[in-house]
């Protein structure tokens, strides 16, 4: 998916962009509202991550202008001043969601997915691999005629593995991306979800391979 990240802190923008790139998303970075307008005029985006305080204006005014011009690319506002009035006002102004800095990356991703799912049809989230079709927004795996529902962590796991098929992901890496940092998780917790995903992938022409002591990878059979 293609994101436009409007954030004036260069360091933060770099970090967020590389984190999003890890999930296989394309990210363009705009450091001001002016730059954001240029990017929007040049290319289509699936989602805008918009900071509130920017050097050349207020992100909320930008949002109001966009909505006024009937452009409704989904927008998630990011703010560092989480007063409730901010939250209520920005949602009223047409933002799809709202996240407070500093944010849990997994939460940002969950929010992005929720927003895109609500705006069904805006994005084609289907991905073909081996003998199945994976729809990240619908949370489904289609094998032949059979549609299999995926639970959140199965979906997340498949998404990570599919972002670079064939690459091996270590247990700790997958844990970092599947679990919240607020909870203590043992390395073995990941095995539960690998087992479940494996069952869902049965007969799909793809195999979730365990490389003992190294990690997991998704390969075509």
């Amino acid at each position: 998916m293609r994101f436009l990240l409007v954030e004036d802190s260069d360091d933060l923008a770099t970090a967020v962009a590389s984190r999003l790139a890890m999930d296989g998303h394309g990210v363009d970075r705009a450091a001001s509202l002016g730059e954001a307008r240029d990017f929007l005029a040049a290319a289509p985006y699936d989602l805008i991550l918009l900071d509130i305080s920017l050097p050349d204006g207020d992100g909320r005014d930008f949002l109001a202008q966009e909505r006024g011009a009937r452009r409704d690319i989904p927008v998630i506002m990011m703010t560092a001043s989480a007063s409730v009035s901010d939250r209520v006002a920005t949602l009223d102004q047409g933002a799809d969601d709202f996240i407070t800095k500093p944010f849990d990356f997994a939460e940002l991703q969950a929010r992005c997915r929720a927003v895109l799912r609500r705006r069904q049809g805006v994005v084609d989230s289907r991905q073909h691999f081996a003998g199945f079709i994976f729809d990240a927004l619908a949370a489904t795996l289609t094998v032949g005629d059979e549609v299999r529902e995926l639970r959140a962590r199965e979906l997340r796991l498949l998404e990570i593995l599919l972002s670079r098929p064939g690459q091996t992901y270590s247990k700790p890496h997958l844990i970092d991306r599947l679990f919240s940092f607020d909870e203590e998780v043992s390395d073995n917790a990941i095995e539960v979800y690998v087992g479940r995903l494996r069952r869902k992938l049965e007969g799909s022409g793809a195999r979730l391979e365990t490389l003992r002591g190294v990690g997991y990878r998704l390969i075509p059979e």
Partner: protein
Amino acid sequence: MRRGPPRAQPARLSLRRRLAWQFAALSALLVVALFFSVRFAAERASRASQDAVLGAAVISVGDGIRAQDMGLALDLPYATFSMLGAMGGERIFYSLSIGPRLVTGYQQLPQPSQRPGDLSPVFWSADYRGSRLRLAAITRRVLLENRIEEITVVLGQTRYGQAVIARDTARSAVWIGLAILALAGPLALWAARAVIRPVDRLAEAVTRRGPHDLRPFRHPAPRELLPLVGALNGLIARLRTALQLAETFIFEAAHRIRTPLSLVRTEAEMALAETSDPGTRQRLRRMIRAIGESSRSANQILDHAMVLYRSDQFDAAPVDFAALAGSVLRSVQPVAEMREITMHAEGLDLPRMVSGDGRMIEVALRNILDNALKYSPDEGEVWIRLEATEDRIARLSVCDRGRGLPPDQPDLTARFLRGSNAGDVVGSGLGLTIVAEVAAAHGGSFSLQPGSEKGACAILSLPLSQP
């Protein structure tokens, strides 16, 4: 130990007592003045009327003097004399003299110091034979033995009656004065109270205010109290400005701290993704946890400040509790999904109107749901149920299947207090305090109860608004 606010030192005499005393003293002074003026006026009036009678009498005596061949003849007008004596047994003296020679009447009756006229008598007072007399004199010219002689008639009268009248008048004046004085006491008290009443009302209005109510006074006050009300409002305005500055400062500080903090967090996550050394990973995870904790605390401190700020000065408006709960539920849905927690909602499709501040209620709901999610295990379930009870209460219960409440459960809604079994879960302990304060501000209640099997239920009850 809790102490009351410092009290102003009272002045020696209360304003009300001082006013009452002043009113009473003033009325006593007025009573004394009234007494003297009544007596003076009464004396003057009675003397004037008696002088008129005395004058008429001396003129009629003068008219009775005739010159005869034999000499002088005098017809004493007895009717006139009896009229003079009628006023309380007065004694009457007279003298008739030609020049300095007494012709008839009382010896050594005082003579006028100036020569009286023919028609207008002169009046004066003098002592004679141990009595105070009021005297009138008149002169007549008579042709006697071919000479014109000047005859002086003097008529004197005691004034016992007048003294009695004056005494009676003075006595009634004293009684009237005492009666007025007796009435003036309570009247003065009443008047003092009436004057003080607006001050009392103003004081009451100030006292009745909640600790966070900083609206200016629109209380109607008499013109004399307007400077006081103005000064009070000035103080409130300065206080409000100071509080707003503090609030702006808190939000600004939060903003300044959060931006670098989010960079730290994102960088730490990146570093975590790139390292495989277990020791470093452990440290990075702890770092990220600490950042999460601090940002959650910052949010709750801001929420708490907002709730405190608004709790006494919000304008209650109709709020659909069910719709608000639904929207907060949707906003935490992605967080629940991340951990595969299923949220079951019940009773959110019917509007439940309460009267209050939507933002505060939203903050309360968000804290309740955050709490339920936080303490739910992965793949757990949370039940949200809104119902209207018979006594017109909207009762929202949020139940989780988490670790539940500690057996020796203290009041978990106290500030910065966390359950003894909260252990490894990140939290500041302020969340439930916020909910309890919002409930209190809306005349509702908040409680934590053990769940039916395991876990805990948070119950927020708000009174439904009248249909």
